[in-house]
């Protein structure tokens, strides 16, 4: 009996070790094959993206794969990873070898650039390095039972708010900038324009109502869909995509909000190492083309192509007071001033949490 059990155990051990080893070998030979490949064998593009545009990429990637095959006769395989923008940016800096990165905000690409992985001027193109736009908006329950129409309503007692964590999520940073900017610009009742102290108090009042801070924008909105909270501050495109997928809640656009500009960049160090530069650059070019921009627009994103933006204007209502990151002096100024250790948001959060 005991001998039989021993035989059984050792058999399990042998099988598991060999299967694990075989698996390892198989993947090694596969990757070895890639690097020594000729031009007609498949190439791979690793896409490191933020969480929100995944449905758009799900439709765009197959179209590009077909285009590339007809143009070059080569198959291109995609490996995709979707994390919160900040988390994705840090993963790439730590060694995740993405060929193309599509993030929520410029500062997250700048981090990769400063790590020495992007060596070209990625903003030197007609869209200034951006691939899509959006705005910060609210998702509220069907029929807006809590009457949340603008920023000021978020500070009302008893309103439960979802917004992601700015430490990991780019969308969360846009949310804070939109809220604080709207207050500074005089679009919040009771907060005089350009009154930093009053704007800070308003930020604190809203943060007090925040019940959940998720890792990424997508997680935040799906938690809202599961019944948490009264309002989710989020990308306009998150709400539009959810509505396309049959989720039943309302989109509210505040009078004043920030224009979200999402960058895309080829990562030089990785495409050169993988030999995937040609395909990766063609992919980015494709994403900026008119057909691709139309697909982005169908997935709730505002187009960076003026012609497409004009053609889809009826789906994307204008905002009374639309400002950009330039209002805060660009990301290099906004990041420390708002999110740094002594930044406005950091101080407000510490203050709210200590109470």
């Amino acid at each position, binding site marked *: *009996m*005991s001998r039989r*059990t*021993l035989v059984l*155990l050792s058999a*399990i*051990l042998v*099988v*598991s*070790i060999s*299967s*694990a*080893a075989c*698996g*390892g070998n198989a*993947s090694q030979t596969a990757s070895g094959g890639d690097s020594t490949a000729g031009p007609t064998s498949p190439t791979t593009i*690793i896409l*490191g993206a933020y*969480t929100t545009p*995944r*449905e758009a990429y799900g439709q765009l990637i197959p179209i590009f794969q077909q285009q590339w095959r007809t143009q070059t006769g080569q198959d291109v395989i995609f*490996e*995709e*990873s*979707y*994390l919160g923008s900040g988390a994705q940016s840090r*993963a790439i*800096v*730590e*060694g*995740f*070898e993405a060929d193309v990165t599509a993030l929520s905000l410029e500062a997250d690409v700048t981090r990769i650039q400063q*790590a020495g992985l992007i060596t070209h001027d990625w903003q030197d193109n007609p869209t200034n390095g951006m691939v899509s736009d959006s705005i910060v908006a609210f998702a509220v329950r069907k029929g807006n039972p809590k009457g949340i129409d603008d920023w000021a309503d978020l500070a009302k007692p008893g309103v439960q708010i979802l917004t992601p964590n700015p430490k990991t999520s780019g969308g969360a940073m846009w949310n804070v900038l939109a809220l604080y900017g709207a207050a500074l610009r005089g679009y919040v009742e009771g907060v005089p324009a350009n009154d930093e102290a009053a704007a800070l108090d308003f930020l604190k009042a809203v943060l007090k109502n925040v019940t959940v801070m998720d890792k*990424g924008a*997508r*997680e935040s909105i*799906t938690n809202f*869909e599961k019944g948490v909270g009264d309002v989710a501050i989020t990308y306009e495109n998150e709400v539009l995509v*959810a509505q396309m*997928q049959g*989720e039943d809640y309302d989109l509210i656009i505040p009078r004043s909000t920030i224009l979200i500009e999402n960058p895309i960049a080829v990562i030089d160090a990785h495409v050169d190492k993988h030999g995937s530069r040609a395909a990766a650059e063609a992919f980015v070019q494709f994403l900026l083309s008119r057909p691709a921009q139309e697909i982005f627009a169908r997935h709730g994103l505002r187009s960076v192509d003026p012609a497409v933006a004009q053609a889809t204007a009826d789906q994307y209502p204008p905002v009374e007071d639309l400002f950009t990151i330039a209002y805060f002096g660009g990301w290099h100024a906004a990041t420390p001033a708002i999110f740094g250790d002594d930044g406005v948001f950091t101080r407000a959060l510490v203050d709210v949490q200590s109470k």
Partner: protein
Amino acid sequence: MTLQPGRLGKTPRERWPRPVDWRRRWLRRALVTVVLLYVGILIVAPIAGLVAGALAQGLGPVLATFRDPQVQKAFGLTLRISLLVVAIQAVFGTAVAWMLVRDDFRGKKFINGLIDLPFAVSPVVVGYMLLLLFGRQGLFAPVLQTLDMRVAFAVPGMALATLFVTLPFMIRELVPILQAFGVQQEQAAATLGASGWTTFRRITLPALRWGFIYGVTLTLARALGEFGAVLVIGGGIQGRTETATLYIYRALDERQYVAAYSAALALGLFSLLLVLGTELLRRREESRQ
């Protein structure tokens, strides 16, 4: 086999003493109700919810989930990492447990304490610790670069992370058994002329059998379910470093709820069968003796 140690080591089932008065009977009923409610709310209800969620649109979408090559890859990767980790822990766990009980060396207490560390550290932190070592700016980065080896954002890093979080299980199963078993039988074997290896193979190992099996079961179950550490060190690259748990997380993000629930159910059922199978094996052996 004279000794039957193990976590479910049993004394003959004790019968509740004859009820002395009605109060005791009520107390007992109340306690049983509390236990049933506790287990029901904590374990049965979530599993039932998962089953309901997976079958919300019938069996078709559930089966379609497992035909998806990305799902198959994710489960395949989970299985590969888990089996590798179990194999390593089986060998080294046994060795470490044996050293801790049978040997005396400087720093033994320190090692003994360190082994429980993975219980205390959050898996996400484990992932970041490994990134600090194996990341692009990590301590070992120059070595890895010259060898052209990839650990972070690749399978070896994920296996390392899983090894870390599963370290205590094997050892903590084996140490008490080795202590209870004592050295007399081993010494007896030695006086009869058995070599060290023969003694280990014929005396020690059979005594360890059940601890070994439970250790393997727990290690495997833990490895299958690991999430935070493999997410941080692996990056969740679809089709490459996406394990079953990471696939479930992604499917939820993509609002593919049936796929997420189906995959979660499959993973849960596998672990359940594993534990039940071990228990069944043990019952059979007990009844045979």
